[in-house]
């Protein structure tokens, strides 16, 4: 067969395999009694529809890509102690789990092995754990219910992780801006700032010590927000009632802080 020395160009025939024969009549739909209705051939009819769906999907995807350029942070610096680590969003729920007391410290094995292990094994073995013939969701309430509860828990944990991360970012020692000049440092606002506890955490030159920098705070917040932070505190680090002055002094302080704008 391989050499074909007699010069006869006979068709190569493969035997003993399960492939469709080349001489099989082409494109006749098979009898699909299992799926009554309008079936169609995978190629090219159905694939065309899949491609149309993919084209719509691709437009949306490329819009996302063009609208949001991916970030590239500063070069990794292992000595940076102030950086708040955060995993990619799809790991946030696992990360959040480890923050709870019952799944951290002594019990960390609950958060790292037991809960994720049970969840993953249950998912893996779902066909055997849910071994009935019934396929409708309504007819198998237990597996569907467990899945729904798990989904809600994952969403809630992810949301909680994101929320706490935002809070931490706000009360963390922020990055010092390029232009560190304090605006209107000779005004009364600065004296009120220095007289109160503000200066202890936010620094002599608003550079931020135990709290975030206030340079450029006028760009980030409204006067109402700043008043609220002074009255009620902010995040986990800034307690309420740190400001001891009068209402009039508070108004001057807020006005002065609103002047702290960066280009």
């Amino acid at each position, binding site marked *: 067969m391989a050499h074909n020395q007699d010069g006869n*160009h006979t*068709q190569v025939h*493969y035997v003993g395999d399960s*492939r*469709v024969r*080349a001489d099989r009549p082409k*494109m006749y739909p*098979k009898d*699909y009694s*299992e*799926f*009554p*209705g*309008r079936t*169609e*051939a*995978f*190629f*090219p*009819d*159905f694939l065309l*529809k*899949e491609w149309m*769906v*993919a084209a719509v*999907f*691709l437009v949306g*995807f490329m819009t996302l*890509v*063009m609208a*949001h*350029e991916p*970030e*590239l*942070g*500063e070069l*990794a*610096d*292992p000595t*940076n102690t102030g*950086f708040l*680590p*955060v*995993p*990619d969003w*799809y*790991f946030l729920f696992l*990360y959040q789990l*480890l923050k709870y007391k019952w799944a951290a410290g002594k019990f960390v094995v609950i958060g*790292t*092995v037991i809960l994720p292990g049970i969840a993953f094994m249950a998912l893996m073995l779902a*066909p*055997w754990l*849910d071994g009935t*013939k019934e*396929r*409708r*969701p309504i007819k198998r309430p237990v597996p569907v219910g467990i*899945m729904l509860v798990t*989904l809600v828990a994952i969403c809630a944990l992810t949301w909680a992780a994101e929320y706490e991360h935002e809070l931490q970012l706000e009360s963390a020692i922020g990055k010092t801006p390029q232009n560190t000049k304090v605006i209107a440092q000779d005004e009364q606002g600065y004296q009120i700032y220095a007289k109160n506890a503000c200066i202890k955490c936010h620094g002599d030159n608003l550079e931020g010590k135990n709290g975030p920098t206030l340079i450029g705070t006028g760009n980030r917040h409204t006067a109402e927000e700043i008043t609220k932070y002074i009255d009620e505190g902010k995040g986990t680090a800034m307690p309420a009632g740190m400001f001891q002055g009068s209402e009039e002094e508070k108004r001057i302080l807020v006005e002065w802080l609103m002047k702290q704008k960066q280009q």
Partner: protein
Amino acid sequence: MLRAIYDWVDERLDITPIWRDVADHEVPEHVNPAHHFSAFIYCFGGLTFFVVVIQILSGMFLAMYYVPDIVNAHASVNYLQNEIAMGAIVRGMHHWGASVAIVMLFLHTLRVFFTGSYKHPREFNWVVGMLIFAVMLGLGFTGYLLPWDNKAYFATKVGVEIAASVPVIGPYIAIFLQGGDIVGAQTLARFFALHVFFLPAALLALLGVHFILIRRQGISGPL
């Protein structure tokens, strides 16, 4: 002309049955979005594969510029994103594609779960799908480190610390991931190898099995 070339090749290699095997099968009505709009939920698997193809292609182009060592990694990503024509688009596709792949994979998994499609005789394909999910998460975790910025570095450090806290095998996992005692040069090289060679190879093998099983067993019937 094309026909003659095809016939010449086909006579020798008998390729017709191979692609006919892929092309000639009926797709039932209940998964066809042209007949029932709600059948778009059956497109999630195909779209996941589509995103995987986007990831492989964009990743191949990123690899033309990316340098996997701690001195140059960050600079090379910065360069390819800001200096190369279309670099921001290619990196953007890979960056967002990673998230979108997880989302589509998640939706596909939920579709299969809620329609009970993992039941007899498709149990094994569900297990293969779960393995694909694990490999995709591994690709996400290893890929996150590669730009070597602070976010990447500290996220990986925390991830490795969490893995290290697992009883008994934890320290071994940490050493395997780090390639040493700290997250450093070895870790980056190792994550690069995992991200570009080992995990994609595993992913393609599992996808092959996934598709062959779908072809053998057909799509599960309507509810």
